[in-house]
């Protein structure tokens, strides 16, 4: 199929007209994304709409005591928390948010809004509103917020009815911990333990016997900062009310969660909310769950007309971030290298609202265990409120933070044992049929091939000189449980329309769906069109996140194609992956299939400036069977490039809770100048199942680089590994070189 599609090359014939979102792809004609012949969310408008500007809190915690609005023009509509009294609270896993708040919990929290005829009018109006506050004490660091007696960000804990809460919450009363997740392998269950471990030097007496057989123990702490998604297209939403029905056109990865959440907020039946998703100019997790949609819908209701909201770049930065984290890992091994036990404490800073932080805590918990066998595993992950902007879904989330720590610790163990770091990994890898710490049995395990491939890419020789080289191997999970539906309809003109909620973020969903449907229907790709995700037209899908879409939709579409052959004009397909983990023991099914990957790096460090020069950065991700070769390569390359920025320079900075670098001058992302060293592989296996790989190569990149840097004596614990941190890791904060010799 792939070959047949490739024969339809642009340039072979005249470019075809583009006929609707999703309808075209690289499979026919010049792709309209190249020539701007498609509409993104930001290009979508509703005639007659007014413009919304959000007024945001200037303090990290406290109360709004009043607004001065005397300077506003008469026609400007002004909204405050008074306008949300009939609305329900929301939040995808914990309903801890209101559409406009009286009690802001971070700098940037939405406290009011103005609606005016033009975007410029709205901007001017927003600048004319003055706000009076009463501040209360605030807390920003995850370890400060979990400390006994810390200021509480929320006075009480909430729950959520949303289907995004796919596991039971374990809020800890009287603390900022809104969810605690634990893994305890069988022998460690049922102990008398403290509910919350707030100290990084806790002796862990209750589980100390897990390490009884260990000859060597490495016990270290690592940190990752907040980071920004930086979708090139900002959040853009248009909303209107038509005969009591809410219609929202918005860039979202979660159309059905959005419909459910909006219905809940406004007290509507789900069918009375329509969510239409145009193309998105990138999302990376930033466009998940309620962002600008509820406030825009509220404004449209009050204005009695369509309303549009487009965020400024600094607002995009503050809207949602990647969770900062502190991770402590204790690894025990026998002298021969056999791993005995692993203990993880993961502290996830979810900011002012939980969003999907509880899920992140869970993923951090098991991804940090890694693809290794242990007699005993115990994990405690805490999702902790602070007064920073909320953390949310982020390409590779959870896994990245704990794998940074876990894979650095494996190298530290290798050093301590005097065993080659690749061999130590090999000796302990999970193989087909082995049991993971969650009790699930590994299937389609490819870790050894991945490890060997990454090692070979940097010329790793067993027990050879490894200066400047680092190799890692990882696993990460996919959203589980999860379900997907798809429909295929035979159109009057003889073409087939795929109706599916998978949003085209830019990852090539349209092409993926087109190719899959054509394959299952045994027709040319020209005969398949894909309709835009529109909750009025497409069936339910959990969401476009966690690299789940290709894996889930391939099976739903196959089911739909079979059904179509039976029923003639419309075929329905449905798949569900059961599973989930017990929040207190971590036993169950963490992931219906595993994302498996490896990475390696070869580099030099300038020992006077701390600057890292990469000669090779390599990643290998297991794809099983590839649907779209170019798309798979692009996803793998993109993940590595994000991983590179994460490793070397991406970091949101705050002063008293105020983000100080919410722009692309002060917050750098990787450019074409940074990628010269990158090579990679998407690993296919004959007869393999379809695996997602939208983010597999993000988490292994930072520790691959970190392990290589550490070989020169720079033991960097905090990401990103800026030249300054590298140098300070050996020389201390004053950077006094012991030699002062010029290396040149």
């Amino acid at each position, binding site marked *: 199929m792939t070959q047949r599609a490739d024969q339809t090359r642009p340039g072979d014939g005249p470019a075809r007209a583009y006929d609707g979102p999703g309808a075209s792809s690289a499979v026919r004609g010049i792709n309209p994304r190249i020539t*701007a012949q498609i509409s993104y969310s930001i290009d979508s408008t509703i005639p007659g709409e007014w413009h919304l500007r959000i007024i945001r809190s200037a303090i990290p915690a406290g109360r709004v005591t009043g607004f001065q609005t005397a300077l506003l023009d008469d026609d400007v509509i002004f909204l405050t928390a008074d306008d949300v009294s009939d609305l329900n609270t929301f939040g995808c896993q914990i309903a801890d948010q209101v559409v406009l708040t009286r009690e802001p919990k971070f700098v940037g929290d939405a406290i009011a809004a103005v609606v005016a005829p033009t975007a410029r009018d709205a901007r001017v109006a927003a600048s004319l509103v003055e706000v009076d506050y009463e501040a209360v004490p605030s807390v920003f660091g995850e370890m400060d917020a979990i400390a006994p007696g810390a200021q509480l960000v929320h006075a009480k804990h909430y729950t959520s009815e949303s289907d995004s809460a796919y596991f039971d919450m374990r809020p800890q009363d009287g603390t900022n911990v809104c969810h605690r997740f634990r893994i305890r392998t069988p022998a460690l269950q049922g102990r008398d333990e403290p509910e919350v471990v707030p100290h990084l030097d806790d002796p862990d007496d209750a589980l100390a016997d897990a390490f009884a057989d260990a000859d060597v123990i490495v016990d270290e702490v690592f940190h990752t900062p907040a980071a920004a998604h930086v979708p090139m297209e900002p959040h853009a939403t248009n909303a209107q009310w038509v005969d009591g029905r809410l219609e929202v056109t918005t860039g979202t990865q979660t159309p059905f969660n959005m419909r459910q959440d909006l219905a809940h907020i406004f007290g509507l039946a789900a069918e009375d909310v329509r969510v239409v998703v145009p193309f998105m100019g990138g999302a990376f997790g930033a466009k998940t769950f309620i962002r600008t949609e509820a406030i825009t819908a509220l404004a449209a209701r009050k204005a009695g007309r369509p309303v549009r909201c487009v965020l400024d770049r600094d607002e995009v930065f503050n809207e949602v971030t990647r969770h900062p984290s502190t991770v402590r890992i204790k690894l025990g091994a026998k002298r021969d290298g056999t791993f005995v036990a692993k203990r993880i404490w993961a502290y996830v800073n979810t900011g002012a609202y939980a969003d999907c932080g509880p899920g992140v805590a869970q993923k951090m918990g098991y991804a940090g265990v890694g693809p290794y066998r242990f007699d005993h595993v115990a994990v405690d992950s805490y999702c902790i409120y602070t007064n920073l902007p909320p953390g949310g879904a982020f390409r590779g989330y959870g896994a990245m933070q704990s794998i940074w720590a876990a894979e650095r610790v494996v190298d530290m163990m290798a050093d301590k044992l005097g065993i080659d770091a690749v061999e130590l990994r090999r000796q302990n890898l999970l193989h087909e049929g082995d049991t993971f710490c969650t009790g699930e049995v590994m299937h389609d395990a490819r870790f050894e091939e991945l490890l060997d491939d990454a090692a070979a890419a940097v010329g790793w020789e067993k027990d050879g000189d490894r200066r400047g080289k680092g190799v890692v191997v990882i696993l990460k999970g996919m959203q589980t449980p999860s379900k997907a539906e798809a429909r295929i309809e035979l159109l009057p003109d003889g073409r087939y329309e795929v109706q599916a909620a998978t949003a085209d973020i830019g990852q090539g969903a349209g092409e993926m769906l087109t190719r899959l449907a054509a394959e299952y229907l045994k027709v040319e790709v020209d005969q398949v069109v894909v309709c835009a995700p529109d909750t009025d037209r497409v069936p339910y899908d959990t969401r476009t996140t966690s690299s789940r879409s290709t894996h889930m939709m391939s099976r739903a579409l196959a089911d739909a194609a079979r059904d179509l052959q039976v029923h003639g004009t419309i075929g329905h397909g449905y798949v569900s992956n059961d599973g989930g983990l017990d929040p207190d023991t971590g036993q169950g099914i963490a992931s219906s299939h595993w994302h498996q990957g490896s990475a390696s790096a070869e580099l030099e460090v300038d020992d006077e400036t701390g600057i890292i020069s990469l000669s090779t950065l390599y990643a290998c991700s297991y794809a099983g069977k590839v649907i779209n070769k170019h798309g798979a390569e692009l996803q793998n390359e993109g993940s590595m490039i994000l991983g590179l920025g994460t490793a070397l320079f991406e970091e949101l900075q705050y002063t008293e809770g105020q983000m100080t670098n919410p722009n692309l001058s002060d917050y750098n992302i990787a450019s074409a100048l940074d*990628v010269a060293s990158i090579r990679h592989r998407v690993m296919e296996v004959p007869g393999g199942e379809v695996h997602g790989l939208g983010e597999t190569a993000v988490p292994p990149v930072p520790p691959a680089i970190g392990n290589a840097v550490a070989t020169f004596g720079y033991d960097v614990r905090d990401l990103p590994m800026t030249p300054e941190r590298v140098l300070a890791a050996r020389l201390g904060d004053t950077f006094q070189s012991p030699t002062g010799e010029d290396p040149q």
Partner: protein
Amino acid sequence: MNLTLNVNGRAVDVDAEPHDMLVDVLRDQVGLTGPRVTCGVGLCGTCTVLLDGEPVSGCILMAPLAQGKEITTIEGLPEDDEVVASFDRNHAFQCGYCIPGMVLTARDMIDKGHACSREEIREGLGGNLCRCGCYLKIIEAVEEAAQ
């Protein structure tokens, strides 16, 4: 202020003040969606337009500065442009938001002979950011188009 701009080969009358940036005038008054605002400080290149054939940042170009110049956006490239075709052949895009700016920048590099090596291509494209991370394929596409 009334300005006449030459956009993609035709004269367009617009009403723009010095505080209006060219990209907004092109989007709001000329109806073009190829130039896009991302960073708003001239760093990322999604707002790239050609001014007399040279790429500039439309998001920080005060509209009157474009008077008397030929403005070219992605919409103004010929249908059979070889850079566009090469981006398509090489699948050098994901979300596509940055791609018009990439194509226009590459067009100028190739026209002026500044795309002779991968090193030179990386340097020329350094100021055009792509968060999807399509750089490797974009560099290949430009290299191929330059040949």
